[in-house]
């Protein structure tokens, strides 16, 4: 069933939870939007955890912002200017939804980082756009946010238009 889930994660077990969520989508092609860690770092961590990375396409929104020298842009990654480049991120996600092969899922990591670079209003509108774009194209989505942002109006807003909210990933 196609649905978009908002995961509210504990920052201390953040990556552990990401891995946990990822294990549940083994057969899917994944559009991984990273706003807080360079894609090379995530790939290495996933490999260490024994996760297959062949079906993951990364939209890296942080490397251009923080690294002096960009890692090579491989066939499974594209760089966006930064987490503040909402238009660039939207184009990348849009292209991914339309051109990624087979059954796919969008993995957005994370709304909390996006909120550090953009107004709540902009992030709210962007989230609504993405969730409805996914719905219209029959694609599932996972959106991550930190527990510390749970009480923010924007997160309450996002909770109202996703299909499910999971506050703690079961271990």
């Amino acid at each position, binding site marked *: 069933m196609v649905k978009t889930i908002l995961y509210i994660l504990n920052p201390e077990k953040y990556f552990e939870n990401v891995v946990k969520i990822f294990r549940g989508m083994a057969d899917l*092609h994944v559009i991984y939007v990273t706003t807080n860690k360079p894609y090379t770092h995530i790939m290495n961590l996933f490999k260490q955890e024994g996760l297959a990375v*062949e*079906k993951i*396409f990364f939209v890296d929104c942080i490397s251009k912002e923080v690294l002096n020298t960009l890692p090579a842009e491989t*066939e*499974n990654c*594209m760089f966006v*200017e930064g987490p*503040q*480049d*909402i*238009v*660039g991120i939207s*184009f*990348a996600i*849009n*292209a*991914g939804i*339309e*051109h*990624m*092969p087979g059954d796919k899922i969008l993995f957005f990591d994370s709304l909390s980082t996006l909120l550090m670079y*953009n*107004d709540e*209003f*902009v992030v709210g509108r962007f989230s609504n756009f993405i969730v409805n774009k996914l719905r219209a194209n029959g694609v599932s989505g996972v959106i991550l946010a930190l527990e510390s942002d749970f009480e923010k109006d924007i997160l309450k807003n996002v909770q109202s238009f996703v299909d499910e909210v999971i506050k703690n990933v079961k271990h």
Partner: protein
Amino acid sequence: MSSIELVSGIVQVVVLFIAAYFSYAIHTHNRVSKAWLAVSTGLVLMGLHRLFSLLVGMGALPGQSIDTANMMDVGLPLIYSLLLAAGLMYMKGNFERFEILESRAREKFKAFHKSRKGK
């Protein structure tokens, strides 16, 4: 100043400030496009210029110095013309970037699709 000129002048000032507001609203829509701020500022200055001319025409600003009049009629139009031109020129580049970005994203995913098909 005739009443038509007065009403027209007031409408022009109001419309210019409304245009500046919308220009600013576009900037808040996407903060990457800072160039819109130059356009917004240009429109505000244009509105101020029009307001100044209107007030002078109404005789509401008696005794203004020649320097002020010169600055308002010569300097200000030059400044807002430059701001509008620079802002729109930068925005043109931004729209071109969006187009490039969109087609690059599309190509990247197509290439990814192709490479995965071969495996």
